[in-house]
Structures are given as C-alpha cells and as structure tokens.
C-alpha cells in the first residue's frame, strides 16, 4: 500500500513530442505528489508538485494531471527538447511524514 507504481520504464520521443509518464498509488493518505528529474551523476531535483485539491498544475512546459478517484497522476512534457532527456521519478508523501515514496523511474530520451 506504500508503493507508487510508475510506467513506462523508458520512453523515446522526437523533439516537440509530448511524453506522458503515469503513476498510480493505493494509499489514500498520500496528499503530496511531486515529480523529480534526475540527470546522470546528479541527485533528483524537484520539477513540479501537486496536492489532491486540484486536478491539474502547470509550470512552464511541465503539467501534472491528477485523478483523485482513480488514484493516478501523470506528467506531461509539452514541446519536449533533447535537454529534457533524463530519468523522471514520481513520488508521494502523506500528511504525517516527510518521507518520500518514489516510483521506479522513467528514462526519457528526446531525439532531435
């Protein structure tokens, strides 16, 4: 119940495409859902995060869609660029903890 399931494991898109990465959870106590971006040799860096009181959040080219009833959330990257090539992790946390539960990661490659 503490897991966050992430798919796909890897994704290849052309420049300008819109990769979509999906995550699902079981624990209804989760109330914070961040997405992290990780480049090789670096630590994860927060990209965007959402709370369950909204269904969508947009920051620049990155959008989180959140479906509370389905217990799913997804990351959309608009007009993807080669510089977006990285591993993306979804995560979740509940109100009574600062522990982040990470998904298994999606390796995104954007080709020119």
């Amino acid at each position: 119940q503490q897991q966050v399931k992430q798919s796909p494991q890897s994704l290849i898109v052309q420049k300008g495409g819109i990769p979509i990465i999906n995550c699902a959870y079981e624990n209804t106590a989760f109330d914070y859902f961040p997405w992290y971006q990780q480049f090789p040799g670096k630590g994860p860096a927060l990209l965007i995060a959402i709370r369950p009181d909204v269904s969508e959040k947009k920051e620049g080219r990155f959008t989180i869609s959140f479906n509370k009833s389905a217990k799913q959330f997804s990351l959309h990257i608009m007009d993807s660029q080669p510089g977006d090539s990285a591993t993306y992790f979804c995560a979740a946390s509940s109100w009574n903890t600062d522990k982040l539960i990470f998904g298994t990661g999606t390796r995104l490659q954007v080709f020119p």
Partner: protein
Amino acid sequence: EPEVTQTPSHQVTQMGQEVILRCVPISNHLYFYWYRQILGQKVEFLVSFYNNEISEKSEIFDDQFSVERPDGSNFTLKIRSTKLEDSAMYFCASTNEGGLAYDNEQFFGPGTRLTVL
C-alpha cells in the same frame, strides 16, 4: 544558488568495514534526510532527522546505520559493518522549517556512490 553538498563522491570499501558519508545541507534548513538508490532501482527513504533526533526511519535503517549532526553544518550517515548489498548511491536531502507539509522542497545532494567489495 544554495545547494546540498556530499563527500566523497565515490567511496570503495571492503565488506565489514565502517564508512561515514558526509553531507552539508543548505544552511538554514532544519530537516535532513538520507535516501539510497541501488543501481537501476528506485530511490528509497532511509531516515529523517530533525531537532537532533531521528524522526522517522525505514526498515532498511537497521542497527548497522546511524546518523549524526556533529556540528552546525554537517550531517553524517555511518554504516558500521558494510555488506555487499549496501552498495548503492546515497543521497542526502534537506528542507526548510515545516517540511513537506508547507510545500517545502526537499533538495537533494549529488550523492555518494558506495561500492562494497
């Protein structure tokens, strides 16, 4: 821009040896964390630390692990007797007063790659 730093970047040790991984969190942060990432796998929570004590730990964080804030700037993770399965990337993170409850970002360091032979 302030950042979390970690040393060393790579540590090689023999099984059974003690290792200490060091982190310097962002200076005004009050919550500190260790996570680990076994090669090719997801990032896993180990421990959180606030007000000079452990606030939460995972089942991975057994008696072989300990954390300490020996002074006002460093935050360390010690593994007393390393095992082969401890080989992983270890990430330190820190966040501001209030933690995630106030949407404060957890900032991650670049990690220490621990290799146990």
